[in-house]
């Protein structure tokens, strides 16, 4: 173990949730969420779709990769419902989930518009992307139960 505590570097003056800071390699992802798009990358050589963002394919090392708009559809791969300690800006209990996207990659998310209970959070349930604006600079790609 020995992992750092995410969020511990937050401004302690206000217990706000950890805010991501884009890098040159991830900027397209964060531009996408602001525009209401979940953007992934696909290798032009081997067609591998991957996450998190980087300007080369982690499968074949090609630098020829393209950004594309993902479907926003996924399923619930796994989760915890965190009770304590709660991260700054979160009211427990809250689910921390990993979503498996239709295109293959997985990413971490909260599950919005859903009771945060084992009964409501069923593995493999269908989810859809929901964009949550944190501030003028950052919008998160979140997920909620798919409609219909």
């Amino acid at each position: 173990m020995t992992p750092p505590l995410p969020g511990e570097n937050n401004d302690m003056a206000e217990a706000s949730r950890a805010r991501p800071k884009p890098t040159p390699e991830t900027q397209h992802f964060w531009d996408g969420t602001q525009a209401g798009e979940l953007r992934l990358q696909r290798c032009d050589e081997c067609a591998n779709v991957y996450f998190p963002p980087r300007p080369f394919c982690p499968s074949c090392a090609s630098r020829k990769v393209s950004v594309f708009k993902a479907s926003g559809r996924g399923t619930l791969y796994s989760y915890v419902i965190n009770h304590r300690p709660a991260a700054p800006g979160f009211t427990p209990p809250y689910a921390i989930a990993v979503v498996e996207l239709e295109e293959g990659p997985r990413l971490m998310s909260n599950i919005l518009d859903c009771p945060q209970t084992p009964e409501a959070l069923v593995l493999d349930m269908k989810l859809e992307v929901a964009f949550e604006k944190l501030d003028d600079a950052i919008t998160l790609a979140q997920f909620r139960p798919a409609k219909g």
Partner: protein
Amino acid sequence: MRRNAVAVVGAAETTELGVIPNMSQLQLHADAALNAIKDAGLKLSDIDGIATAVETPQQIAHYLGITPTWVDGTSVGGCSFMLHVRHAAAAIEAGLCKTVLITHAESGKSMIGKAPRSIPADSLQGQFEAPFGVYGPPSMFPIPVLRYMKTHGITHEQIASVAVVQREWAAKNPRATMKAPITVEDVLNSRMIAYPFRILQCCLVTDGGGALIMTSAERAKDFPHKPVYILGTGESVETPMVSQMKTFDSSRAFTVAGPTAFREAGIAHSDVDHLMIYDAFAHLPLYGLGDLGFMPHEETGKFIADGNTRPGGKLPMNTNGGGLSYMHSGMYGMYALQESVRQMRGIAPAQVPGAKISVCHGVGGMFAASGTVIFTNEA
């Protein structure tokens, strides 16, 4: 590496374990190091190789007054010390140094002289995990477990039994932090931390440290204690982001480190007399049993719940009480190694009679890294 070419000739933990409010993290390193040096019958000036994690090798070397010819600052989390053992064995074999000191210490509870941990907001973890409310290991390490349970048909009661069995071992260990017997019901009714895990399925938070001294098997014969030989080792890393593991059904780092060590040792699983699987949380022994090839993952929960790893069982595991009941300073790997060495020396508080081969398997981060060391007391 050659089997049994290098041995542990000194091993000790800090004088105290648990809550140590009168010692900084740096001094805990020194306390463990001085105890191990005494255990080996050496002087500080005999040490020419040094390895440590979190604290830097230069910090420890300077504090102890050592100017080494070989250093290793591999810091991949709680299994760093398994990797140090592997690297030290290779270095001794290669002639880079003769006598290596590996130290661990952590003021995990009292937080004296311990640098605050932080995740930069522009790191990948800071961008793609921290914003979703992960906050320390209890909110992250159990994230894979519901998927593991569904895939492999593991029950909540079976995972709870891990904590129950380890408390049985801890009850035999005077230095264990938690000794009172518990039941599966106690575990499943204890305070919720991060569903599905409750407090009794999460490791302790304590202060302490430990140190090892290694040298060539040739020289090892001249030391006060029976040498504990390095039979096989393995290591790997996967990802610092738990969300990006290849699968939650298994740990890729485990499936590299463990089998590599078994191949190097040239042993079968049935040869293993004693097993340590780093238990920061209650699901880790299940992953370990499956990924190291002891049995299919589907059988791991039942194997533990049926009592096979408890005192008197056919595969004694985590015989010090583990991170759940013995101690857990944050980087528990050193304590697992210490227990393997005690078992191989035949001096463990809950000694496995006649044990000749001990497998010690560690994890770093949230399945981020792994190291395996297989020990034997037979040259």
